């Protein structure tokens, strides 16, 4: 393609399997009565906005594909299998089929390697795609009619400081942007993570019993609100500045690097995010939000 590619949207698309469970899609074996409507309705509004965009592929970075040696990238054209959530198998047993944009995946891999980042293509056809990738992609595009590029979360976070890992995520974002621009494709990025991430350690007898759902701790809520306010004011740079403290204080799932990667790939947008919803899932804080450059004046 000769036309320069572009990131047409970036979205913070959290992946609690509870949201798919509550939607009752035909792919999922368990069924629910309802649940977590604020977040699900938020996803509905985001889908409407994304439907206005003409895009070719979704690139998603998931905290639940955990690799301790660099970032890995899905490199098999098609996957079809059953995903069972290892933590909530009672809620999520999802039969998935997805196409992968291997060409774009390889381009991201090449640019990352050129930047001295450690990356590897995942070529094993028996590989089972992680549930984080599946949940975020399903809630963003339940038709599954766009090819996916799935990127793992480098969990060398256990070895290096938060600052080092965040810098690596920023570099990966820059490599992703260059690869997309060279590809000539129009791409939506998904950062598949919650904000504060302290779970409850018990589960309600009826998982969708919303009388039991609340933030795990008020301090986590305050942090979530602080980050969301910065999103709404277009303060991406400031979010990344404060990210290490947020991760430490709020036990944030942003430690996986997904949000940092996405904001970096988008060039640290200085315009407001569209915040569709905030809600808690088993105590964690989740926001559904998008950054759409074409929607800016």
């Amino acid at each position, binding site marked *: 393609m000769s036309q320069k590619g572009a990131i047409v949207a970036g979205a913070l698309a959290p992946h609690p399997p509870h949201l798919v469970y509550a939607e009752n899609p035909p792919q999922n074996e368990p069924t629910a009565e309802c649940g977590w409507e604020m977040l699900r309705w938020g996803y509905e509004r985001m889908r409407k906005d994304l439907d206005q965009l003409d895009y070719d592929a979704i690139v998603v970075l998931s905290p639940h*594909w*955990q*690799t*301790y*040696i*660099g970032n*890995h990238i899905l490199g098999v054209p098609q996957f079809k*299998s*059953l*995903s*069972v959530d*290892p*933590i*909530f*198998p009672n809620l999520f*047993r999802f039969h998935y089929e997805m196409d992968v944009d291997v060409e774009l995946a390889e381009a991201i891999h090449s640019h990352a390697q050129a930047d001295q980042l*450690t990356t*590897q293509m*995942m*070529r*094993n056809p*028996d*590989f*089972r795609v*992680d549930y984080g990738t599946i949940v975020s992609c399903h809630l963003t595009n339940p038709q599954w009619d766009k090819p996916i590029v799935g990127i*793992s979360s480098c969990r*060398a*976070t*256990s*070895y*290096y400081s938060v600052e080092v890992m965040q810098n690596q995520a920023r570099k990966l974002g820059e490599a992703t942007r260059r690869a997309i621009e060279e590809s000539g494709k129009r791409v939506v990025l998904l950062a598949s993570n919650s904000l504060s991430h302290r*779970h*409850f*350690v*018990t*589960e*309600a007898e009826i998982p969708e019993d919303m009388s*039991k759902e609340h933030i795990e701790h008020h301090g986590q809520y305050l942090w979530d609100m602080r980050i969301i306010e910065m999103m709404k004011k277009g303060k991406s740079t400031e979010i990344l500045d404060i990210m290490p403290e947020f991760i430490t204080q709020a036990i944030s799932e942003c430690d996986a690097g997904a949000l940092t990667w996405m904001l970096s790939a988008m060039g640290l947008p200085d315009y407001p995010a569209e915040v569709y919803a905030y809600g808690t899932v088993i105590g964690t804080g989740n926001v559904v939000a998008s950054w759409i450059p074409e929607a800016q004046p």
Partner: protein
Amino acid sequence: MNIVKAFLVPGIPHPLLCPEKNAGWQALRDGFEALSQDLQDSGAELILLYSTMWPSVIGHQIQARPEPEWIHVDELFHDLGSIPYRFKIDADYAKTYKETATQRGLHARCVDYHGFPIDTGSVTALKLLTPNNEIPACIVSSNVYADRAETMVLGKAAIDAAVKSGKKIAVGAVMTLSNRLFTDFIDPKDDRIHSAKDEEWNQKLLQFIEEGRIEDLSQLSREIQRQIRVKKVVNFKPFWWLAAATGQSNAFTGKVHAYAPLYGTGGAVCSFTPTPDGVGTKEFDEDDVEVFRGDRNVLSQGQSQNDTTEEEPVAALKATADEAVRDPNVVKTSKAAAPVGAYPHARRVGDLLYLSGVGPRQAGTNAIPGGPIRDENGQALDYDVTAQTHAVVENIKQILEAAGSSLEKVVDVTAFLVDMDRDFEAYNKAYAELLGHIGPTRTTVEIRALPTPIAVEFKVVALP
């Protein structure tokens, strides 16, 4: 003893998938095969794995699908190939383990779903230890929030389930010693332990292992974690679980079947066999724990997570604990009121005798001399603390004599009163009459409540 063997094995898949690429990986593969034979020779009827590579968040998950089948691919080392498996799981034991864990206050559930992702560590261990499903297995997860108390209780629940099942069980932890992986891909021939410090600590651990000192490794767990383990992974929990699941002792002979670097980590295949001899009895630096009373009830405050009443699990625990524990240093007597939890009346440690908290309840009847402090509805009642104090001291006397000691050998007393203002004077007077002439050191504190409707309880240390 239902636990016939304990072991630890690494879960990183190289010994299974590509042992030929590195001499150390091949040595570990050979070690797995030696351990496999060892397990079969032990007469074990079940292999119970605690896998550090199966994290859980909501309590503890126990694999209960009778024949789980899948083609597994490791999320990190996917380039090494696929691992087809079909395991034989002892679903009955899994259900019993879930019940005993629940009785001990843990949040536990069985998983019995087609396609449930069994972790790489468990897959590697079972493929190599029981390649033709010669011995059925069960797998329990490693909860990311569980710390020492919860992990120990989970281990003790494994014994409870072993006793209930009547089976001979081999318990094993899927873990490495030092666990620092390389953060870049390496040529297999360049594999080594990540650092000299890790290697030095691994050698220390191997010495403990060869001496069969499971309980000592459990006691050192936090220090080991600090020195050679990556933070935020799962702590060095496996030895808490392993020690609790094997009776908290050092009475084992240890064997290191193999030790080699595994992508920077310390891979070790080791086994422990119970023996009447050992390097010495345990010395608890931290509290022993029988029942978990942590924050597993946050969603349902005021409601029990169990379907059973408070008394039922305690009674069950005592029964299984009595069967499982044959430690000569443990003192139990029918001449004092039965404990209200799974703990003995007293325990000898070195040159001292430690008594559990002793109240005034009477052996056999649980009657409280001087009357209870509240009725069944929680309404306060008048009571006689002098009579209660006399009954406490009489119970202490009975326990000490059952242990071969006497009231005169008491050296330290901690007294707990639920109402200092009301009761101190009368208690203090009775104490002086009963123990003043013996002269132990004493501390008296006020507390909010005791487990039964009593006003006073003593914690005593004595000479044996």
